[in-house]
């Protein structure tokens, strides 16, 4: 029994990463109808910045995180204005998506130049990633607890912004009907840029909090990005909570696959899931098929 709890917990922790990245992807897609292929690499750079500043530049950990988040926000602001905005005016989906791929390549190479290709393991304050609590036979890693709390806080803050602030209302209106939202006086470029920044901050938190779990390597967030993408597809790509639920589900499926099937199969699992989901429920597991409009 403890065995299963252990696996479920493990799946949940991985699921948090997929859920957060899934959320970041859905947010931008839903509001601006843009797929951001640079999301993983951007998140990786945030993580790298924070841990590198803390471990190699002797910055206090909290300050390093704060700086990394500021850099993430500011950098994303510049990226959106420089690469996405000029293309949005042309009104075509594909060029923007290809542009995000270009941004991804660019950022990946910049970070490769900066940090090199070798994996690093930075220490976190108090070495809490090495502390394990034993509750009966259940082993709880202290850093995993930090991951869980951070995820919970991040989701709460995003939920608050979406449901309680004017920016959130604008995002929702835009997601529902772009032209109608414009006619209500909502500035498209304002909503778009803050959605990008919010999405990148969620990604940044993910990158920072999962770096000690994953080893820091130039492309360490790529695999999380792919699984976050799968999470978004599971959720139908248009539902924020669907993306989060999709991430958690994927984490669990993965953890239990590793327990019962050969490890190699677990690596193929996301692809298999996407295949099945797109075949059976192309609109996602958690969203209803769009019905006919009432007249």
């Amino acid at each position, binding site marked *: 029994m403890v065995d299963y709890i252990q696996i479920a917990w493990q799946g949940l922790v991985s699921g948090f990463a997929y859920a957060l990245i899934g959320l970041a992807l859905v947010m931008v897609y839903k509001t601006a109808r843009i797929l951001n292929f640079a999301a993983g690499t951007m998140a990786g750079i945030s993580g790298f910045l924070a841990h590198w500043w803390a471990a190699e530049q002797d910055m206090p950990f909290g300050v390093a995180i704060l700086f990394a988040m500021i850099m993430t926000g500011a950098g994303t602001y510049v990226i959106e204005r420089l690469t996405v905005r000029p293309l949005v005016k042309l009104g075509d989906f594909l060029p923007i998506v290809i542009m995000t791929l270009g941004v991804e390549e660019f950022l990946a190479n910049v970070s490769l130049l900066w940090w090199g290709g070798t994996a690093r393991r930075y220490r976190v304050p108090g070495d809490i990633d090495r502390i394990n609590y034993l509750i009966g036979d259940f082993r709880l890693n202290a850093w995993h607890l930090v991951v869980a709390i951070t995820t919970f806080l991040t989701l709460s803050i995003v939920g608050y912004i979406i449901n309680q602030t004017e920016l959130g209302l604008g995002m929702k*209106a835009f997601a529902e*009907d772009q*032209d109608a*939202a414009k006619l209500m*006086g909502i500035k498209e470029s304002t909503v778009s840029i803050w959605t990008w920044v919010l999405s990148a901050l969620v990604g940044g938190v993910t990158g920072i909090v999962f770096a000690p779990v994953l080893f820091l390597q130039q492309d360490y967030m790529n695999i999380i990005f792919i699984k976050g993408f799968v999470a978004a597809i599971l959720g139908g790509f248009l539902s924020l909570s669907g993306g989060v639920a999709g991430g958690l589900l994927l984490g669990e499926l993965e953890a239990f696959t590793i327990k019962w099937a050969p490890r190699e199969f677990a690596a193929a699992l996301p692809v298999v899931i996407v295949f099945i989901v797109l075949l059976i429920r192309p609109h996602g597991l958690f969203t209803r098929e769009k019905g006919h409009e009432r007249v």
Partner: protein
Amino acid sequence: MSGLKIKDLKVGYGRNEVIHGLDLEVGPGEKVALLGANGAGKSTVLKTISGLLTPSEGVISFNDDEIGGSSPSALVDKGVIQVPEGRRVFPGLNVEDNLKVANYGKSPEFLEEGLETVYKKFPILEERRKQAAGLLSGGQQQMLSLSRAIIAKPKLLLIDEMSLGLAPLLVKEFYEQLGDLFSEDVTLLLVEQNAGLALKYCSRFYVLRNGELVLQSDSAEYVDNPVALQSAYLGVDA
């Protein structure tokens, strides 16, 4: 001189020009209808005034303020408000959030005032304020769409095909209510398929055919015999 003035407007989608040089005026507080068959370019004109489309040539001014090519949000700030064709409520947002969106970027005090007005005029919206707008009936959605315009405090109101997909009796009611919903000095340009109704409400009208103006007149001359407009719609002698 003020009100809405359009001079030699040309606009289209990509390379397809839809409006080939339109001149149109609506005096301050005047109610004018823009009529024409399907595909004549009526909605295109409204979308251009409200900033969703950018004119390729020509001048649009409102109260002596050049507004052609401004962004929709800048126009909303100037009081240019469009009630879009097909109502376009946000189906997934509840009724109250739909109304909140109409007050976007403005003080919450305006919203409270606006909500009070709107709920007094359409009590059913208050009753259903926590319901998703997509679940409302067509008529209720039109109420919501008009209510958003009320909250936005228009100076120039553009209404696009209020009758679309609604029962004729309901549409008639909406037209009868219009004067009560918006203040007398709101300048109004409305697009309508149902010429009979539009002529009763508006003092003047224009008829558009294939992107060109083919007739303009006082409503009084046609209000008892809208059938006479057929030739203008179709381009043949009736």
